[in-house]
């Protein structure tokens, strides 16, 4: 905008205010947190700059749900020997505007006076490829980076990202957008979006010599992020060994296994039974689950506070932690091609296994007393059913194998006399015919059964 001039030709500009948005006061520690912390470690204090690029804020929400540790555990200094952590976060920081941006600028200019970690949520648009006067896809703060600058244009997030990189103690990419590119970088990407590693390049090392740390997931398990941060801080405080990261910079202990290996429905796969419709309880592979080939820990750790998890609730895995997400797992809700082979094999072998297990299970559902009495005293009806010849044959061989070289409890039980006070109400002549029929399944007499 062209400057307006007064009658004498002097440029007229509106003054700004120095503390706009600083509703918590200039004397307050900027950012959120900074309580407690260890004064004895190599790091007394660390600032965390959370930047949102092409982001949906889902990683922020996921991190706010973490409980192991929680964000407030880190910020309130509740974990002994960790440094004081001060978070600068656009969704959580008390101050806004100038007051919020000030520490970011101090970090860029090397004037922060404390080490800092940068966390990126969201992918990186190709804004640096534009001439600077034609806008942005992602911006934060305005007024340029040069103190002499008089621009009022928004500052591109991509400028913050590269300017903060050399001084950062560590650079953490949270979520699949920042780690790999995610949906903004999928087919149809019109913003030139990419991952943080693509943007900074393979040679990037933080001020402490660490490449970009990647905690993927769309959105990630909150605990995966906070735990990784805590692990890195413990290492920096000489309390724990350096955490292990895999060849793509993922925390190795979190992403080393496939999500299928810890899936509660994996047992169905083993027995060759598969969900056919959405809402069926069996293995979800044939309705579109990629779990057997996806590195993720959500079925083991749960989604929040150890609860939930995609397949735990019945949601097919769509590969959201993986670099190939989403295109290499699309269309969703359709069986992956590999499942026709592996699933087919498991139907054959698993089908046999399942039938044998049912036999053993039926046997296990009988007490020794019931075996001797040749009846099951349940009023619910369902548990009844005599042993057929197959059960008997199975029982014979099963017991042989089970007790070989040990004590045969089947034989010992057979010698056990039946308790005399079995069926005591009948022996005492208690009349139950007045029972109210709320179940629609009245308790039946032995004769009726």
């Amino acid at each position: 905008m062209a400057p307006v001039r007064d009658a004498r030709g002097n440029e007229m500009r509106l003054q700004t205010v120095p503390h706009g948005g600083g509703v918590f006061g200039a004397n307050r520690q900027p950012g959120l947190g900074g309580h407690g912390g260890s004064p004895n470690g190599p790091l007394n204090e660390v600032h965390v700059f959370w930047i949102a690029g092409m982001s949906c804020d889902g990683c922020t929400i996921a991190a706010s749900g973490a409980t192991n540790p929680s964000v407030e555990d880190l910020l309130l200094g509740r974990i002994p020997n960790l440094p004081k952590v001060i978070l600068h976060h656009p969704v959580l920081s008390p101050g806004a505007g100038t007051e919020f941006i000030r520490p970011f600028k101090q970090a860029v200019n090397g004037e922060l006076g404390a080490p800092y970690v940068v966390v990126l949520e969201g992918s990186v648009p190709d804004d640096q490829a534009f001439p600077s006067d034609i806008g942005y896809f992602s911006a934060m703060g305005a007024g340029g980076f040069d103190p002499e600058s008089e621009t009022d244009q928004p500052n591109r997030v991509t400028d913050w990202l590269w300017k903060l990189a050399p001084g950062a103690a560590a650079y953490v990419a949270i979520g699949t957008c920042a780690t790999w590119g995610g949906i903004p970088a999928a087919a149809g990407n019109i913003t030139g979006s990419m991952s943080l590693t693509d943007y900074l390049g393979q040679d990037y090392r933080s001020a402490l010599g660490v490449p970009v740390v990647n905690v993927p997931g769309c959105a990630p398990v909150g605990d995966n992020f906070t735990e990784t941060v805590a692990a890195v801080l413990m290492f920096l405080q000489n309390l724990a060994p350096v955490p292990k990261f895999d060849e793509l910079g993922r925390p190795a202990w979190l992403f080393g296994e496939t999500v299928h290996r810890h899936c509660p429905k994996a047992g169905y796969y083993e027995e060759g039974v598969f969900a056919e419709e959405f809402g069926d309880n069996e293995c979800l592979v044939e309705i579109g689950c990629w779990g057997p080939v996806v590195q993720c820990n959500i079925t083991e750790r749960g989604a929040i506070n150890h609860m939930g998890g995609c397949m735990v609730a019945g949601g097919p895995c769509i590969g959201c932690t993986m670099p190939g997400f989403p295109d290499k797992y699309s269309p969703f809700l359709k069986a992956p091609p590999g499942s026709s082979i592996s699933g087919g094999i498991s139907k054959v072998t698993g089908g046999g296994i399942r039938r044998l297990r049912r036999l053993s299970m039926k046997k296990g559902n009988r007490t020794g007393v019931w075996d001797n009495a040749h009846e099951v005293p349940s009023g619910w009806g369902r548990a009844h059913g005599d042993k057929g010849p197959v059960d008997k044959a199975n029982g014979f061989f099963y017991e042989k194998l089970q007790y070989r070289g040990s004590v045969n409890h089947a034989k010992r039980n057979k010698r056990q006399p039946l308790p005399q006070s079995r069926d005591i109400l009948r022996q005492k002549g208690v009349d139950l015919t007045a029972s109210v029929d709320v179940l629609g399944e009245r308790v039946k007499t032995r004769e009726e059964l």
Partner: protein
Amino acid sequence: MCFKNLPIEFDSQGNATLKQGVANPYTYTETPAPTPIEDDPERMRELFARNGAIRRVDFDPVTRVAGALAFHTVVDLDSREVLETASMATLFRGYEVILQGRDPRDAINISSRACGVCGGVHATTSALACEMAFGISPPPMGVVARNLLLSTEYLYDHPIHLSLLAGPDFSEEAVRETNPEIWTRAENTRTQGREVHGYEFMSELMTDLTPLTGKLYLEGLYYTRLAREAYVLIGGKYPHPHTVVPGGVSTTIDPSDLNEIMLRVVKYFDYGRKTVAIWNDIAEFFYDVNPKYKDIGTRPKNMVEPGQWDDPFAYDASYENCDDWGRRRWATPGVLVDGELVTTSLQMVNAGVEEFVEHAFYEEWTGNGSGNEYYKFPTDPAGNPLSPYHPWNKETIPKPTATSWKEKYSWSTAPRWDRMAMETGAYSRIWTAAMTPNYRQSNYIEPTGHSLKIHLPKASLPNTEIEWKIPEVWGAFERNRARAYCILYTAAIAYDNLLLAYDLLRKGGPDAKMSTPFKVPKDHRIGVGLWSAGRGYLTHHMEIDKGVIKNYQILTPSTWMASPKDPFGNPGPYEEAVMATPLLENYEKPEDFKGIDVLRAIRSFDPCMPCTTHIHSDDRTITREIISCACGATGDHEH
């Protein structure tokens, strides 16, 4: 009937038709935006002569909102007025383009990622659009499961706003810094709700609103997690669930799931009562200090609400019947103009919507009205007239340019209903329900026409009557207060649906199935999902052809409210609300100004920017070349 500005008439049967005899009826003449103060020599001279207290205050970024929002103001710190406002969405990701050309089965899980604060409702709204296009609807249990998902989602959503985002502006430190005289008064003011929340003095309550160290802040954080624990039992994870599918959900629900959800939901009976008592005390205290606080963030009572929480035995996913099944929702659809309910028809909610891009970083797509006669969908599937600016007709091309208050300054479009700026949110939901005649049968919710009564079973706190009354003056404090009541409103609906779920599970049979099988149709179909998010209005408009998505458009609550100015010269709701805000902050000299009243006004809307900014496009392929070309030049390019 319900339209004053759109060229739509109603016949004696109440059917909507286009006004006859008008050429290009949707054409308008653009009213230019006012010249920005800093570009207007005469205004500048006048202001410089007026006093030494004119300041430009830019809040970039506005923190404690979800997503990327910046807000420009020019204020007169002598007369304590706001002279100029501009609301800027500063992020664009192109989700709809990424959705184009994909298998419709990807729509739910891709569009969920439009927003990470309320991804669950995007997934569901997308499922509704798919169901309409595919011609299927879920079995009752599938609908109930979704109702449980989206009630537990809002039980996380409202506390996160009240405790973590808005609450700190009323905390001890903020009040001492910006209005120390109010803090002194708070130390001597007894609360009204002390029996419920336990705070004897206002000052104690305000101390506990402090970020991170305040008990209410930490308690709010805990309650955002507790509801998410319930959510993930059905949704798998949050914010992006993987169990929402066309035709229902892929969850298996067993009694343990319902028990664990129930044990969490009932905790909100007490937490909701406590939160209501706190926000009642905050509003009444500030009004008592200075009645002008009622004007912080005030604007006309114009609201749009598509409703949510479907009746499991009424929802059939069809557009033709959506007025009927819409009215059966626990949150009923409707539009409020000046506080009057002008329609409860979901079709009219949809047909009244237009989006404008004069001040957004997009190119106009109708050829400035010249395409009026030949646009794709002149009517909706029920025959109601649609504007060329309606989302089903939208065809927008991104055009990043330098920011200019006069020209283009935001990635948010300007949605309007009947060409009026509308707000939407938890409050429009409770307000519309309060005014809806013949509200559905519910054990716990009773609209009275001027209030909404919520009869909850007793938990730990005494079972006093809960009644939200439609406020006389509408502003920031009332938005927050209504949101607090919505915790109880939502908990009541969650509980209603839990009891339904227990019943369906017990009875078994086809009603207890979780989903209806579907095939992706190969012919041309359209669908729309209308389902309000935690923060209000949300629609997904979808067009599919030959088994792929041809057009996909998402219109979100914060697009409505963060909107820039429209071609009729009207500001967006944030802009309008901040313009009307008196600056009651205590400052001796302009240099001390922080802007808390402006921030309270903006935050009361619960802005959520991630999904506000996206592009809509037709079958036209948008490539980076076109963008680079469009933004690199002033019009002299070859394309």
